[in-house]
């Protein structure tokens, strides 16, 4: 520490007018792997895409992408998942400061950036919830405020916060041309990548314990993070330093997405990920140091006797080569997972003769963090980074707004949320085969949880719309207590009825599955109800035919089973003819 203060005195004047990046973050491919897995397990994202008729492999605005050499060699093919990964990588963009290069700071290799994004990647939850702050030198916004657009959001600042993602989402549904919608779809998923980067970073204790690790002007900016370098070799299954074998693959799965009441709660609060990482783990610059009072951080406890101490024999990798057995005193910390309530144990610090790389012996034992601790931390924190990222995505896409068309071609909107009121604008959009979208109608409605609107008349399309004609409903408004929520889904097109056919009337017959809602438990398959539904006002697919499947409400799925003509005035037998209401309870 004396050494460090001496350097601070030397550099403080020179740096007082500069802002500089102070953090690394999980490195690029680690973020990429976490994001890819979060996208995969997020039910919300996948339901949203499915509801819009988007395949997860569909491509959007590929020409806008950052080329692989400037994206840590990640090849963005334009899919929603790839755009999210581009966002998560580009959240580490920073500005070029030529004055710092001679001091050993690497110039940025990202495309030119006007802002130092990594400055805003810290959240000091145990000391007031501030961001990175070194007096007279540098300060950043708290990571959660930066992600949620509460601070730093402007055209010259952060354009990829959560409110920006909402803005892009609305445009991606309402834009008149395909090109505009594709661009905004790409921006929506890129923005979400930026947002979840900030969540993933707080699963790294250096980001939640004010421990700068830029590797740039080290006395102030801190040493680069060996934890992050090591974890990156696990993401890439490469060897780390003197290890003769490749690092084990990252453990990504195993932590279900938590469902929390606000976005903020994913960062801070009793169940916040930043609180969990800060209060349960040490970092290299804020290790268990009784003399220094653990740097004013109350948790984990600043007493060695608060831990279960075990002498452990581990592989060490002396600089002379080979592998030896080395003795390390490992400090185990038992913690309660605030979401699941389960007990988790981790090797949070070590005391031994060996240095942080388990490569060199010191004269006296020291507290270090080494790869034993890093593996232990990563196996707990990385699956949570995945789970919390997926949980936040689930929350973002939780609105379930749909609509059915009754036999008079009127729209009945329904709110698929089980516990939140949806109130705001409900739009009906029509898209012609050339991809041009126009608004057919808009309404201001308030729908209770699982509720539906009265049938509402909208402008109808002429009979027999051409193949490729599609319609959507879009919602923009307040869901529960969150404002400016956006949702959308495919819907049937309202079409003027055709003149009577000499062959009779055409019917589509669907087999439907209804899954009832039962308080406090999921229904068993024995309680599922199958029934037959016949309609002449079917939802059309891209070719103008009855859709192969449809979802009249969020508990019901129907599949086309027959299509044919009946003499005028006749109806299919043993079939329900009415629109399936949201509160449908089958007889018996």
């Amino acid at each position, binding site marked *: 520490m004396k050494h460090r203060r001496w350097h601070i005195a030397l550099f403080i004047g020179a740096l007082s007018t500069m802002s500089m990046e102070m953090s*690394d973050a999980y490195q690029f491919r680690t973020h990429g792997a976490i994001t890819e897995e979060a996208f995969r397990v997020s039910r919300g994202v996948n339901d949203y895409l499915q509801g819009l008729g988007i395949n997860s492999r569909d491509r959007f605005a590929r020409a806008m992408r950052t080329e*692989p050499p400037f994206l*840590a060699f990640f*090849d963005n093919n334009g899919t929603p998942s790839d755009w999210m990964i581009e966002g998560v990588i580009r959240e580490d963009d920073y500005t070029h400061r030529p004055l710092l290069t001679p001091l050993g*700071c690497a110039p940025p290799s990202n495309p030119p950036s006007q802002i130092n994004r990594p400055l805003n990647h810290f959240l000091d939850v145990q000391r007031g919830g501030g961001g990175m702050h070194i007096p007279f030198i540098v300060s950043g916004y708290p990571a959660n405020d930066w992600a949620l657009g509460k601070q730093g959001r402007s055209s010259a600042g952060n354009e990829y916060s959560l409110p920006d993602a909402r803005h892009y989402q609305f445009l991606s549904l309402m834009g008149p041309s395909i090109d505009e919608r594709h661009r905004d779809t790409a921006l929506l998923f890129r923005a979400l990548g930026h947002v979840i980067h900030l969540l993933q970073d707080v699963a790294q204790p250096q980001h939640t314990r004010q421990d700068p690790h830029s590797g740039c002007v080290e006395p102030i900016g801190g040493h680069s993070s060996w934890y992050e370098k090591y974890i*990156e070799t696990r993401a*890439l299954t*490469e*060897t780390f330093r003197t290890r003769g074998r490749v690092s084990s693959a990252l453990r990504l799965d195993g932590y279900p997405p938590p469902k929390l009441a606000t976005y903020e709660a994913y960062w801070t609060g009793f169940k916040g990920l930043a609180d969990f990482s800060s209060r349960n783990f040490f970092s290299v610059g804020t290790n268990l140091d009784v003399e220094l009072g653990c740097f004013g951080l109350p948790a984990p406890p600043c007493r060695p006797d608060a831990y279960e101490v075990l002498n452990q024999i581990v592989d060490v990798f002396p*600089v002379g080569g080979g592998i030896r057995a080395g003795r390390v005193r490992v400090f185990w910390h038992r913690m309660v997972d605030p979401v699941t309530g389960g007990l988790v144990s981790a090797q949070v610090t070590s005391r031994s003769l060996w240095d942080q790389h388990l490569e060199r012996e010191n004269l006296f034992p020291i507290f270090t963090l080494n790869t034993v601790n890093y593996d232990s931390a990563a196996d707990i924190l990385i699956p949570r980074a995945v789970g919390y990222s997926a949980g936040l995505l689930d929350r973002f896409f939780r609105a379930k707004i749909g609509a059915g068309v009754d036999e008079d071609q009127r729209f009945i909107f329904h709110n698929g949320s089980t516990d939140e009121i949806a109130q705001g604008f409900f739009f009906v959009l029509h898209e012609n085969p050339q991809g041009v979208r126009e608004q057919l109608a808009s309404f201001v409605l308030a729908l209770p949880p699982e509720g539906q609107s009265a049938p509402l008349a909208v402008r109808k399309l002429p009979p027999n719309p051409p193949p490729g004609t599609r319609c959507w409903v879009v919602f923009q408004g307040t869901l529960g207590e969150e404002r400016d929520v956006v949702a959308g889904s495919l819907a049937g097109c309202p079409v003027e009825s055709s003149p009577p056919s000499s062959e009779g009337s055409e019917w589509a017959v669907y087999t439907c599955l209804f899954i009832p809602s039962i308080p406090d438990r999921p229904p068993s398959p024995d309680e599922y109800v199958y029934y037959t539904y016949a309609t002449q006002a079917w939802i059309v697919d891209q070719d103008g035919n009855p859709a192969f499947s449809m979802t009249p409400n969020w508990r019901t799925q129907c599949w086309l089973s027959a299509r044919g003509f009946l003499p005028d005035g006749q109806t299919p037998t043993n079939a329900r003819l009415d629109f399936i209401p949201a509160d449908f309870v089958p007889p018996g």
Partner: protein
Amino acid sequence: VATLLLVPGPAAAEVMCDWFFRCLYESPGFRFRVVDSETKQPLADVHALAEWVLEGSHGRNGPLMVQDAASGADGWLRFSAWGPTHGPRTGLVLNLDPAITLFKPGYKTRLLQNAYPPETTETTRLRRFGEDGKDTALEPFRGTPAEWIEQLRKAVYPATLGRPSEEQLLQFRSSYLKRAHRVRAEVGRLPQGWRDVEDFSWSLGRTITFYESGSVR
């Protein structure tokens, strides 16, 4: 005492670099032989791309030096000495000093990481190659076209560099272009009209355009 405290420790042997930010790096050159992992026979026309990767403030920070070579009939690959070259104080990534990707159609793309000699640190000036003079094996590829595309992707987009700058890449464009053209020739042999092939081909085309013209526009 103060003087003693300020003297860099034994791990920081490069005093000029660690204290005065004057960092030099060099390679004495090296060679190694590539053989088939099953037959142990030398492999000709293996393309090797060697990258000496810089540490950066935000992870790996692109190459300080790039060389490429192709093996002859005897399977030997030779890399010439370079340096001394100025570089940043963050140094070179241990194990990626160099990182070598080996590419030959019909074989799995292989990343060969340096097994660096004892006492090497990030700022050590002379970077020797731990496999100098030894044999290294390539494993024959047996798999689906989709898996082959992944091997091609690894060959042209190895994840070893982190995020290099435009200047770094264009400085070594001839080596990168040679690799990219070899990979493109392989893409041409894949079933066309298939989405994975189209995606990769589109991406590779833009990358080649960038290396050739300095821009993708």
